[in-house]
């Protein structure tokens, strides 16, 4: 799971906790408030009940408009609702609480944000309007909003501080593609900036190492190619044709080897730009065979090319024959009879050779300097890397005592 998703989960959980906290606080506060209201309402109801009983003892008509009652209600912040409004209030009111007060029923009613006290028994029904304000607890709501804003701010701040990680990731991907000019330098002082700066330092060292390696290779190439060039000019002065041809063959092979080293170096240092064009598979096979350091006679004896069906494939004319050449070279080296069969069909190009099956997992042979081979252990590594650059797959299977490598198209 990514760090970003973890942070998102933490903040969603925090949001739920904060909401739950404020919801429960709201609920508790509301209950407390209703209890306080209830006490006041009960006190008023008892007073009215007392007044009713006194009136009953005196055999008087119950009148809640008397001065004593009115004064009490005024001090208690209540006002008697007139009969017209009473009907309307009772019609729309919602009962919040109800209980018995002696022989009367007391109800706390709500219409919108107004509270009412309803008291009735078999002799009277009085409805009082509470003049006190019982509005929404805005302070609590404000606290809740402030907490959410704080959480949101914290989330933005945290994700912003992690943003350089994403930049770092995309820059590292660019480096992996071979672009070493990317700068990781950061003027901040957090841990990500420290990692970026450390990575930049490492990259600059790597760049200078690659530069020096390129300079070294360039110098080697120069030193090796110049004598071949001189040899070629000297060869042009020779008059004996056979001698001339012999030297020419030697120089062209040396040149081929050097060019192959240069191409492999370019490919492995990710400096090679693939150029995809449609080619006839037969041309690619012929080019691969030409790249081999073998004379034509040996090639004719040891290599059989079979075109089962014509194949046109979109590939790079340098890289593909280089891969195929290494594949053929390898097959020839390990074949019990040193013979190789190349088959072209509509699925790809297969290289078959007699011999024992590979003992290790085939993937391990794609690693550089594989120790179990007869050579440097670079053949299949070059093949694998070249085909990977061409987005082609190398398939291996063993059948009829033959190793079969197929470049699938």
């Amino acid at each position, binding site marked *: 799971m990514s760090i970003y998703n973890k942070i998102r989960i933490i903040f969603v959980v925090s949001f739920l906790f904060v909401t739950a906290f404020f919801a429960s606080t709201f609920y508790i506060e509301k209950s407390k408030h209703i209890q306080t209201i209830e006490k006041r309402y009960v006190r008023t109801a008892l007073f009215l009940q007392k007044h009713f009983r006194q009136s009953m003892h005196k055999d008087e008509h119950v009148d809640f408009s008397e001065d004593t009652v009115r004064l009490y209600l005024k001090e208690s912040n209540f006002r008697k609702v007139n009969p017209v409004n009473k009907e309307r209030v009772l019609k729309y009111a919602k009962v919040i609480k109800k209980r018995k007060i002696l022989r009367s029923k007391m109800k706390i009613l709500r219409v919108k944000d107004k509270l009412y006290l309803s008291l009735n028994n078999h002799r009277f029904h009085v409805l009082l309007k509470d003049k006190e304000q019982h509005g929404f607890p805005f302070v609590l709501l404000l606290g809740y909003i402030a907490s959410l804003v704080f959480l949101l701010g914290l989330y933005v701040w945290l994700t912003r501080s992690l943003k350089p990680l994403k930049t770092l990731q995309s820059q590292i991907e660019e480096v992996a593609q071979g672009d070493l000019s990317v700068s990781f330098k950061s003027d901040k002082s957090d841990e990500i900036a420290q990692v970026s700066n450390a990575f930049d330092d490492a990259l600059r060292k790597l760049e200078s190492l690659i530069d020096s390696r390129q300079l070294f290779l*360039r110098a080697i*190439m120069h030193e090796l190619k110049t004598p071949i060039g001189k040899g070629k000019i000297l060869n042009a002065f020779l008059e004996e044709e056979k001698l001339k041809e012999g030297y020419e063959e030697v120089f062209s092979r040396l040149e081929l080897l050097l060019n192959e080293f240069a191409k492999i170096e370019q490919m492995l240092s990710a400096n090679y730009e693939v150029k995809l064009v*449609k080619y*006839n598979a037969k041309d690619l096979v*012929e080019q691969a065979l*030409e790249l081999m350091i073998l004379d034509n006679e040996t090639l004719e004896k040891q290599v059989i090319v079979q075109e089962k069906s014509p194949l046109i494939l979109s590939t790079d004319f340098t890289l593909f024959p280089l891969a195929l050449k290494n594949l053929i070279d390898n097959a020839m080296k390990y074949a019990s009879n040193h013979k190789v069969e190349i088959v072209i069909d509509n699925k790809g190009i297969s290289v078959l050779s007699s011999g024992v099956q590979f003992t290790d997992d085939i993937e391990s042979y794609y690693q550089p300097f594989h120790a179990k081979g007869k050579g440097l252990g670079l053949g299949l590594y070059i093949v694998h890397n070249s085909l990977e650059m061409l987005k082609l797959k190398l398939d291996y299977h063993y059948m009829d005592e033959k190793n079969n490598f197929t470049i699938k198209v």
Partner: protein
Amino acid sequence: MTKILMIEDDAQYASLLTDYLKQYNIEVTNYEDPFLGLSAGIEKYDLLILDLTLPGIDGLEVCKEVVSKYDIPIIISSARSDLSDKVIGLQLGADDYLPKPYDPQEMYARIISLLRRYKKTSNYEEPSYKVMLDESKESVLLDGVMLDLTPAEYVVMKLLIQNRGATVSKEQILYDSEVFQFGSDGSLAVILNRLRKKLGTEIELKTVRGVGYRLLS
């Protein structure tokens, strides 16, 4: 006589090439020091052969300097194998790039081809060849007689004749023509063998192993 200025720090290499080109009536004057080469009166020469790895200054800088001041065809010849050198060299205004090691015959072919384009030498005469191209009729003539060629064979011959003496890479042949990209009447090697038969023994189509082909006559 064609006069060529060469800036090459390897004296032995320069001397060998000078001797080789002398047989074609080409006089080469070499300067191992590029600064001396730059002040040698470049306008007196018909062509400049320039190495890239030079003491004190990079060959590409020399190329830039020459292009900005003189109208002279330039062939860069270097053992540096970087593709960027070739691209930069040609972008700077060099006319051709021949990587070392090269066949001296190819260098001669390129010199002739460049001089023909520049028409610099007064004594230069367009040589007549046995194999000629007639682009208007999309045909190839051998001793004036039109050869019966398939479209793929014509494409190969056209490129070889246009670059007579120089190596034409297989990649260039296969890349330049749609005939090959959509399936031709055989592989390039087969086409070359057929062409050799049609051209006869007097015309040499040389295979430059792993690179391409060259028309020598």
